[in-house]
């Protein structure tokens, strides 16, 4: 029975708690990858991921570990993305495992996102193996952390391995624990094929490569497979394991983690969570938990001044091939011209896509205010889902608008409870409950409009808790709300790219904030530029960008020429990055600046 020697597991952790470093050490200590071939953080292979220290795309690796009992074990280490935006993907990765190593930074303790992932793992009935990281640091407090784990999660942390992933301390102990604690897979190798897709990537030569965990039966080259949710049928061209590159094998059978290629053209045809079975001998029941991906946040992406439409379109297409959660379609804006409406899992996902456009494709783009999807119920009862504020129907036609509400879990040190409750209050949060996790740490449970969460809530939370606060949220329902469309007018002309939907009670504050921000950012012109925020026809805030009265260097002698020239060059460069609206020039950064959290406001 080969299953006895297989361990399928994930590592779950909060951002920065050292998950990727630990994965590196595990890979290194099982001897599969030579130390000299290791880039730091092997599993995070996008530059952006390594830089931000987070995992966006999954990486799965098959390792061989020779245990103290003399047997060789196959470890399938399935990586999980590390951010609240990617909860669904995390849950599918976990579903492919029997156990999870829970990494807790014992200088920080348990945080909200750790809890989020722990609950996801518990939902999948995984065996959880706690492990305390950063044990080498002076500020490590392993005993308290163990107690926190026991109190909060209710699992025994007494024998939790103490490691330092960075220094390579305690890794062997952890590997032995994995063998002992995490159960081997089960499932009938001779049964009907049933495999869960937990990730897919696009490969230029092979087409879509789907990553699966086989729960029953087996699959080999030449089989006709059916994807149960999309109901599409393909012929298998290759199967294999990740070691960590693609290594073809004869077949995959129950208990295995591996990949399948079947000439699938787009990742969206092989959705995460879907079940693979044989077309001529299908399983009766698909794997539970499949969900269609739902974009939570939308925004417009437009080519910046001097950038063309086609390269942006090509780049978005290329990104989409590899990211089933990212949607886009063409749209036009009176202010920005031809561009795209894009859907994301969350704000981080959006920032990542925009950054990749800029870095990997060297494109300069403008993004419009992000928006959630509103449910607009018209007088005649028809329902419209609106994700672009510009498309909001005439208020006279609207019976009411509903907005998405999320349940937010906010974990903070107790000293910040007052400040954060005030913040949540301001963001229209309704407190459900508050738990003391330990005497020092508090878990606040709120219901909040998603619209309030996406703008700058996370930044505000981090800023107000000196970085200690953490947030986890999930959609719960749509709720009737008093919402209005806030427009921005520059020099009396509406700039649709700035329009946003806000709660009526917030319209005035938001309008004033946007006007003040734009006043700071828009440079002086030869004429006065009124900046107005309006709801319908009513102007609710106004600022004026003064006209240039004085833009002159008074003194310019022998020693000043180089410096003053640089000054003028800077002024010229600044002008290049401007976007022209009528006669008004607006710097590119204005579009994001009006969304950013400002400590002083």
């Amino acid at each position: 029975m080969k299953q006895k020697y297989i361990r399928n597991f994930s590592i779950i952790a909060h951002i920065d708690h050292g998950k990727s470093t630990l994965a590196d050490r595990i890979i290194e200590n099982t001897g599969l990858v030579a130390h000299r071939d290791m880039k730091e953080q092997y599993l995070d292979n996008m530059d952006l991921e390594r830089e931000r220290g987070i995992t966006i795309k999954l990486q799965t690796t098959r390792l061989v570990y020779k245990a103290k009992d003399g047997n060789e074990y196959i470890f399938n280490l399935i990586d999980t993305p590390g951010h609240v935006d990617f909860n669904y993907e995390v849950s599918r990765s976990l579903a492919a495992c029997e156990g999870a190593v829970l990494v807790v930074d014992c200088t920080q303790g348990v945080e909200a996102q750790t809890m989020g992932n722990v609950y996801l793992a518990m939902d999948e009935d995984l065996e959880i193996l706690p492990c305390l990281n950063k044990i080498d640091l002076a500020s490590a407090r392993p005993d308290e952390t163990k107690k926190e784990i026991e109190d909060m999660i209710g699992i025994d942390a007494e024998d939790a391995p103490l490691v330092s992933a960075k220094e390579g301390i305690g890794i062997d102990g952890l590997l032995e624990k994995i063998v002992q604690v995490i159960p081997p897979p089960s499932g009938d190798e001779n049964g009907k094929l049933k495999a869960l897709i937990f990730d897919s990537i696009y490969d230029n030569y092979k087409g879509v490569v789907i990553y699966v965990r086989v729960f029953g039966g087996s699959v080999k080259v030449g089989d006709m497979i059916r994807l149960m949710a999309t109901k599409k049928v393909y012929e298998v061209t290759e199967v294999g394991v990740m070691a960590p590159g693609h290594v073809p094998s004869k077949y995959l059978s129950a208990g295995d983690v591996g990949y399948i290629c079947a000439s699938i053209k787009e990742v969206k045809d092989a959705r995460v969570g879907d079940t693979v079975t044989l077309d001529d001998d299908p399983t009766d029941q698909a794997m539970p938990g499949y969900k269609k991906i739902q974009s939570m946040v939308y925004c417009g992406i437009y080519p910046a001044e001097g950038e063309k439409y086609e390269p942006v379109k090509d780049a978005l297409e290329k990104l989409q091939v590899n990211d089933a959660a990212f949607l886009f379609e063409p749209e036009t804006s009176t202010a920005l011209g031809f561009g795209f409406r894009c859907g994301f899992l969350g704000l981080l996902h959006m920032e990542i896509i925009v950054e990749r456009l800029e870095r990997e494709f060297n494109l300069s783009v403008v993004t419009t205010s992000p928006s959630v999807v509103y449910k607009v119920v018209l007088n005649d009862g028809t329902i419209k889902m609106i994700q672009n504020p510009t498309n909001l129907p005439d208020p006279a036609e609207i019976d009411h608008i509903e907005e998405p509400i999320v349940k937010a879990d906010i974990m903070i040190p107790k000293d910040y409870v007052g400040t954060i409750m005030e913040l949540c209050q301001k963001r229209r949060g309704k407190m459900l409950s508050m738990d003391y996790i330990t005497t020092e740490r508090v878990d606040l449970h709120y219901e909040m409009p998603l619209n309030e969460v996406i703008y700058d809530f996370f930044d505000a939370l981090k800023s107000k808790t000196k970085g200690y606060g953490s947030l986890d949220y999930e959609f719960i329902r749509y709720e009737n709300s008093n919402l209005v469309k806030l427009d921005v007018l520059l020099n009396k002309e509406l700039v649709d790219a700035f329009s946003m939907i806000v709660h009526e009670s917030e319209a005035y504050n938001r309008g004033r904030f946007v006007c003040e921000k734009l006043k700071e950012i828009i440079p002086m012109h030869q004429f006065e530029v009124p900046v107005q925020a309006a709801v319908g026809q009513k102007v609710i805030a106004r600022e004026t960008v003064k006209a240039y009265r004085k833009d002159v260097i008074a003194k310019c002698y022998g020693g000043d020429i180089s410096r003053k020239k640089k000054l003028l060059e800077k002024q010229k460069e600044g002008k290049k990055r401007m976007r022209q609206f009528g006669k008004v020039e607006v710097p590119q950064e204005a579009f994001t600046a009006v969304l950013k959290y400002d400590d002083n406001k």
Partner: protein
Amino acid sequence: MKKLGIYIHVPFCLKRCNYCGFYSNAMTDATGAREAQTHYVQWLIGKIREKGEEFRKKYLVDTIFIGGGTPTILQPEAIEAIMGAIRENFAVESDAEITIESNPKTLTPQKLKRYRATGINRLSIGAQSMDDDILKYLGRAHDRADFLETYEMARKCGFDNINVDLMFAIPGQTKAQWQDTVEQVIMQDPEHISFYSLQIEEDTPFYNDYIDGRLVPLDDGLDRDMYHWAIGRLKSAGYTHYEISNAAKPGYECRHNLKYWSFDEYLGIGDSASSFMNGIRTTEKPREEYHENDFDDNAGEFVFTGLRKRQGISKREFAERFGREFWDVYEGRRARVQEFFDSGALLEEGDRLWLSEDGIDISNQIMAMFV
């Protein structure tokens, strides 16, 4: 032979003014100061000799400017030694314009007479204001009476080419105060008047005050009102407004400073002194800089510095200097420049391109089109 302007930097002052970003050291301790100055002048003379060996055969010096700092706090022997070193190591034209910068309270008749005797024929006095409260606020070491005394002294000692430096748009200053200053100076009838709108320079006490919000800059509207009023008043008093911040009686325009705005060569000697020689811009230690100009640098600097002069630039001269027609070089910018022609800020007629008086107010964005 090519013409050359020499600039000598003397980095010593009685005290640092609150607005000044020039390189200089305040000299409080008299004995230590004397020593440092002697040391510096000796070093300077060595430098003059060095530069002379390099350039004397190729250049004829037609202007000398001893600036600072406050060069007049040096002993008269020091100035004599510097002038002697220049004459020994360079060929100086007989009618060269030789200026020394000064502050009231640092001059005596004896000093002035000895300066004249070295051939120094132009005196620049940093008066800044005729209002004692404002002078105090600026951190100046003198008051109005000191200025008047110095000015009279200079006339008596034979200086028939005097510049008075003035400053406006000082926080808290009223238009009437500024007008009063200008009137009083016009009454003295100097040959040249410089009038600067206060610039907040980095690393000065004013800059720190500004960042901390203690200094509120004068409203731009009032600043420009003061500026344009002064231009009008000076014109009616017989001065020609020839550069953004400079006016002179006909024939008394500062020939040395004009080199900076005319893409001419100049050689700076001394700490932090800047030079433009053979198409290379350099600045001495401690603010060291070295930059070999390329075509774009040259064209941009010629235009932006040239537009500071009221007569503007000559497109023919541009073509002669750089081998390409002006509008060929700037073809791509023409559409954006048109905005300024349309509003009358920038004017073009025949060979010349220049800024209107109103155009000066927004000259940075116009000049930025050409760099």
